[in-house]
């Protein structure tokens, strides 16, 4: 099913709804006044959630004695500004930013009344599947976030490694039963999961929902105009499938990676030009957000904002929220197809693979490579007219972006990272590809 058809069938095109006023049972933001933050209602529980959610995975960092720590002052300022402008959903995890994210969120949020925001955090038991360790992680989150309940609680990044991995992390040792009880006790208001994996696994989790094994109050999926029908077929599921299945079951949807780690805010030049022709004064990122917001079952769209600039831009997008027209959806579909042509790595720079035990700066390498490709700083053959200039630009910027001893040629292919990658990227293979490319640049054999 393509997006257009879907919206027609559901009869819930946001434009239509906005005009018809509040309707229970739908999450669409139909209680909004113009010029205000777009809100969506979680039908089961009545939460009025801002469509823009603050992702706490990409916060501003500063260097303190050689260690990267969160810039708490900047975080406070951003959180205050966001809340002033109606943002009320904050998504974090004990694993984010080397474990610093929850604490910083707790400090910033606790300066506001508890009922003025929703907290989402996760059971991120990646390393240790022991029940005690999992429960400790759960309890620590309360302390870090300075609260006695979680509005939204997620089983973090399930789906990879099959049913077995899921059972090992959550079922066999009992953490799943534990969080279910916690929900009954009211300490978890909504229980859900964030998903990365194959269609079979997604079906499995929804089956659990259908047969009464566990009721999912919400679900967090990766969705954007690229992944809608052009997700990597071997590793991810097209978002249109995920959306439709959740919508069928009326499960509210939280969107992660609406920008693909910023890649959709930094699209190749040709695509950027076409976007600007259509919306000269809107950011490239606004297209990606408007895409996700055009679907009525979407409760909240997470955006990781590392500085005031994206925050200001996002507030602008979501306070004058304008869903996409059919024609615009078609346009994005064409752009997504075009993007597939670029030899970029599908990395969203989430840092889940890090730290690489051998010191390789995986996201740094991918980011430099992808940026070079999308910005055209990317020699393709030594016969190119501007080959020398491009080569110098590529190699100099590579050394600037990634320390020499952390570059791609230091990857030993131990494959430890693969299991951690939510995008299922074959990281060692991609690093080898980039390493070979750089080698051919250095030796002029391209």
């Amino acid at each position: 099913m393509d997006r257009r058809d879907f919206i027609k069938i559901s009869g819930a095109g946001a434009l239509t709804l906005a005009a018809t006023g509040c309707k229970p049972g739908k999450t669409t933001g139909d209680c909004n006044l113009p010029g205000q933050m777009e809100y969506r209602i979680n039908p089961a529980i009545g939460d009025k959630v801002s469509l823009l959610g603050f992702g706490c995975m990409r916060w501003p960092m500063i260097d303190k004695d050689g260690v990267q720590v969160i810039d708490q002052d900047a975080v406070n300022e951003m959180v205050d500004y966001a809340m002033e402008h109606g943002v009320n959903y904050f998504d974090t995890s004990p694993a984010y930013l080397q474990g610093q994210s929850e604490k910083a969120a707790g400090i910033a949020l606790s300066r506001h009344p508890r009922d003025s925001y929703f907290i989402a955090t996760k059971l991120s038991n990646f390393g240790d599947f022991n029940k005690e360790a999992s429960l400790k992680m759960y309890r620590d989150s309360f302390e870090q976030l300075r609260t006695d309940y979680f509005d939204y609680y997620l089983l973090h990044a399930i789906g990879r490694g099959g049913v077995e991995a899921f059972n090992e992390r959550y079922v066999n040792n009992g953490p799943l039963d534990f969080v279910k009880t916690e929900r009954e006790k009211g300490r978890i208001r909504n229980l859900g999961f964030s998903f990365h994996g194959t269609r079979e696994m997604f079906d499995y989790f929804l089956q659990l929902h259908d047969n009464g094994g566990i009721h999912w109050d919400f679900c967090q999926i990766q969705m954007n105009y690229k992944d809608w029908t052009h997700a990597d077929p071997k590793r991810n599921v097209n978002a249109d499938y995920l959306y439709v299945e959740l919508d069928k079951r009326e499960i509210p949807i939280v969107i992660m990676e609406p920008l693909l780690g910023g890649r959709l805010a930094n699209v190749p030049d040709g695509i950027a030009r076409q976007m600007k022709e259509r919306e000269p004064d809107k950011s490239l990122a606004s297209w990606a957000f408007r895409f996700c917001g055009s679907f009525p079952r979407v409760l909240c769209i997470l955006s990781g904002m590392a500085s005031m600039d994206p925050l200001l831009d996002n507030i602008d997008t979501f306070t004058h929220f304008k869903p996409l027209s059919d024609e615009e959806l078609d346009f994005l579909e064409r752009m997504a197809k075009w993007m597939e042509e670029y030899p970029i790595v599908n990395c969203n720079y989430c840092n889940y693979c890090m730290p690489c035990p051998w010191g390789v700066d995986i996201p740094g390498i991918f980011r430099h490579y992808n940026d070079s490709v999308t910005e055209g700083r990317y020699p393709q053959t030594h016969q190119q007219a501007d080959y020398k200039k491009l080569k110098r630009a590529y190699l100099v910027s590579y050394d600037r972006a990634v320390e020499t001893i952390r570059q791609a040629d230091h990857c030993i292919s131990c494959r430890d990272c693969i299991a951690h990658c939510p995008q299922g990227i074959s990281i060692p293979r991609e690093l080898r590809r980039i390493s070979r490319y750089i080698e051919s640049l250095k030796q002029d054999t391209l």
Partner: protein
Amino acid sequence: MMLRKLRITFGILFFAGITLLLLDFTGALHCWLGWMARIQFLPAVMALNVAVIAALVLISLIFGRIYCSVICPLGIFQDCIAHMGAASKRRHNNNKPYSWSPEKRWLRYIVWGLFVAALVIGIHAFVALLAPYSAWGRIVQNLFQPITLLGNNLLAAIAERTGSYAFYSREVWIHSLPTFVIAAVTLTVLIVLAWRGGRTYCNTVCPVGTTLSFFSRFAMFRPVIDADKCRNCKKCEHDCKASCINIAEHKIDYSRCVDCFNCLEDCQFDALKYRFAWGCGSTDKKADTPQPEGQNARRAFITGAALAAGSIALSAQEKKTDGGLAVLLDKKAPEREVPITPPGTKSVKDFYSRCTACQLCVATCPNNVLRPSASLEHLMQPEMSYERGYCRPECTRCSEVCPSGAITQITREEKTRYHVGLAHINRELCVAENGTHCGNCARHCPAAAIEMVHTGEDENQRPVINENLCIGCGACENLCPVRPLSAITVTGRHNHLNEN
């Protein structure tokens, strides 16, 4: 007078050119200025560059020690210092910065004899210590290049902010502590000597100066004092930084005169002329007791402490949270039984017998591979090591710049013929031995000399080295994940030109 201005102009051009050549880390200046290094006396001797040697001897025979005032960077450097020293002395010493002093002949010829003996026997540290071009190269590479690199890195930081690729950052590091210290001592001693006595070093210590003096004393053209016109004002004598004008006897020691032509301008009575004077005039033969000039300090050899060969393999860090970078220990150099010398050298022995330790190759190596040796045997002469990079297959820069023929010029294709080293695997350190999927050495070997094979009964693939293919470039050692001591290391081969 024209002559002095010419001397100063050309002197500045040569001095700036050679110094820039020694500072240049980009390799861009070499094609313009490389010849300036090749016409230096000692490198020309080492390279058996007969044309250059003959030309320099001929110039000395015709015009005197022009070489010392124009071509030798160390001489011009001392002129600059002496200029300042003399200015200060003029203020305090009644306008008489210098005065005639007899030749310190014993010291001069003993040093020269020792130098020649060292050259023949092969005590190259002593040769490099005294040779003027080597001394200047050492000073520039060790003491001045880091400063220019820091300046470059500042520009690189600015360029990075403005999105320019005009400048790129370079690592600043002390390549070898002993050589660094010797360079600092050399510079200090030279400054003190030049400040106090002008060309003391050139006329008492410098073996090249002494060699050229054998010819310059018979020079066709030379400054000659016309005793009839001379009023014995001694203005020239007090202005002679070589202390070689003896007005009392109206004689000039042409073995020490460096043709600076300062005296010609000093004389108000037209008594001094630079003219054709073949066979007439004489050098002063009066001997004097040699005076020590504090040169002993320069002989203080300091050898670096041997690196503690800690062999702690990095244990892979366990992942608990997202992000961050694993701590990486700095690589340590293994002990290499035979030093590794660059491709283009015929053999280790040949290399070390020709190298003048001018540090030009060290200054230009873009991969941080070359550095002065800290061993007593080859002190200050370069060797290769792979903690910071490896000898990249496309790079032939050291072979292009070497002025002494120690590294002969090679092309990228010819480079593969030079098997300068051989890799060895320390199986106790190798991570592939205990089942970690690695093979990084095999993947990056440009000679395809390393393969991953099953050797034991287990499933593990281990690296093996084909000793016939290994060229010793160090890619494996540099990219080996084991730190601080790599599990695969390279040692030199004595004779490394593979004629196949």
